[in-house]
């Protein structure tokens, strides 16, 4: 059995750069990826950005770049007083989850005498929280959850995102990977810190012409026989990051 989805948006934050095809900001120092600001990522301000933990900022930023690439606007930019929310899924995958944030929260409990726990920080000790933030910012009312797995290929998130389109419950889906903190490594000994998200649709978006910006074929094919396998044209995709290698370098 085969089915297809169309890639209508790509966004990323890696130690080398952040952005989307045609709009790339290269980092002089890899540590810049840990100092993301709302101004550097968003055209339309989101007041919650500043209070997010580093893991959420990373994932949210990559989603924001991908959504901009796909032509989605923040819900606050709509002129209608009560804009309709959209059935768009948001599915992420991670090996580290928000363990970095867990450490930070635990540290607030360990003073002598103990500090008052931070309610704002506790909220972000759920790795799916940045998906909720993205849902609020863009008005995404589809399914949303984090998949935590040591595989870290992004393909489980991709597969469930394609399911959300196939069932007809969602008209588009944003899916990808996000890793930060303990366990990550820049030398290949662990998952690299960073985030990468795609926006998928069943058909190419008529309002967005990405062909001039991306080196990618637009259609991804899933073959379901003894496990899911993904193809771009003739080439099998074994991890999401390889899918956009030409775009992010």
């Amino acid at each position, binding site marked *: 059995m085969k089915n297809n989805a169309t890639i209508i948006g790509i966004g990323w934050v890696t130690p080398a750069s952040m952005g989307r095809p045609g709009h790339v900001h290269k980092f002089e120092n890899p540590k810049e990826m840990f100092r993301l600001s709302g101004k550097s990522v968003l055209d339309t301000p989101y007041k919650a950005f500043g209070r997010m933990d580093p893991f959420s900022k990373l994932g949210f930023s990559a989603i924001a770049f991908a959504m901009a690439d796909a032509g989605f606007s923040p819900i606050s930019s709509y002129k209608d007083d009560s804009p309709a*929310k959209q059935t768009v899924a948001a599915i992420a995958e991670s090996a580290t989850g928000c363990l970095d944030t867990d450490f930070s929260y635990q540290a607030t*409990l360990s003073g002598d005498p103990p500090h008052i*726990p931070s309610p704002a920080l506790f*909220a972000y000790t759920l790795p799916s929280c940045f998906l*909720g933030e993205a849902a*609020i910012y863009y008005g995404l009312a589809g399914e949303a959850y984090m998949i*935590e797995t040591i595989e870290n290929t992004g393909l489980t998130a991709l597969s469930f995102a394609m399911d959300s389109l196939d069932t007809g419950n969602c008209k588009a889906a944003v899916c990808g990977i996000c890793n930060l903190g303990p366990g990550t490594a820049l030398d290949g000994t662990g998952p690299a810190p960073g985030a990468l998200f795609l926006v998928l649709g069943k058909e190419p978006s008529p309002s967005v012409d990405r062909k001039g910006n991306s080196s990618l074929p637009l259609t991804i094919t899933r073959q379901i026989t003894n496990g899911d396998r993904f193809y771009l044209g003739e080439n099998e995709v074994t991890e999401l990051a390889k899918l956009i290698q030409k775009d992010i370098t």
Partner: protein
Amino acid sequence: MNRVFIAHAGVVSALGRGLDTLYRGLIKEKNGFSRVNRFSTASYVSDIAGLIPGLSLTKAGAMESAVIELAMGLIRELPHELSQQIKIGRLITASTKGGIDLLRTDSFFATSSDRQNGLPASAARGLPVSSLTANITREIGIKKTGFNISAACASSTIALAKAGELIRSGREHTVAVLAMDLVTEFVFSGFSAIGSMGPGPAMPFDRHRQGLTLGEGAALIVLTSREPLARKHNPAPSEMAGWGIAGDAAHLAAPDKMAAGLKTAILQACKTAKISPERIGIISTHGTGTVYNDAMELKAINDLFPSKAVMANSIKGSIGHTLGASGAIEAALCTKLLEEKTLPGTKGLIDPEQGAVPIFSSRNRTFETTPVLTINSGFGGINAALIFQVLP
């Protein structure tokens, strides 16, 4: 499209080990709450929780989370004959914080140097959650890498929905969903700080409810496309007929007052099950006992079931809010309800909230065969719904 049958449902909660123990405890109106002495509660709004009898958290310096023993205990309880006959193709875990009990201030890798160097891969059996899932998957001999679904308090409801999709589409024949969460100072302090914890036992759907009571628990649900196995190993064989997931896109920490996401999730579940909402006779609600959650659920139920012919309950006044495990514990209980045809009353409900009568009651109530709906909602504005029905 394959149908999704329940091969096995096991539970451990504050009322003890086993689904039957949980159900009998609820029918007898038992309360599973006890005073927390794992850590000092002096700075927090409550000092009680639904603790699993006899469960101790990891000791200082320990290298394995208590949650692993909890999970393996449920796996060992799989009936021998069933485990011989069934081949689990995939494990999906559902936990919000996994082995967070390892992250103690006095534990071996909570120092700043360990933090900078990253976790020693062989050391932490329970953190991060991805490694918890990988460890359990390896121990029970499943070849495919497992994964954890994290979606706050809807985690295991969504994990069951994903398992259902894998089976329905023919990609897997049998999927085990293992849900678990512990009461630790980490989560206790957090729920106290964000103001959703109440001082006393939770009072779901009561006018005077003051917040949730934390609980811990685990559930193992084995779903399969093999109907004969489900029939052979269950006195009242049942299927998971429908599921739905939808977001509020309204607020990170509070539910949508209009309950739009929850209503969409319920209607999606009805669509998957190919039934209309009027066919549903029983609802196992999330019912945390917080002001806003319960109000949102009442809005959804009253909007979608205007005849008020439906009966609903919450079990969180008996075992507490078991976070990511709650959906699977309640789903397991739904399969038991289909067998027993008696809905346990809602413990803690004394003076029902407007719109809760006659749908909710503190009394046990009998019912005729009907599809059973279970619903959960979580942080980030996510909602999920499952529908179970008994096989003819």
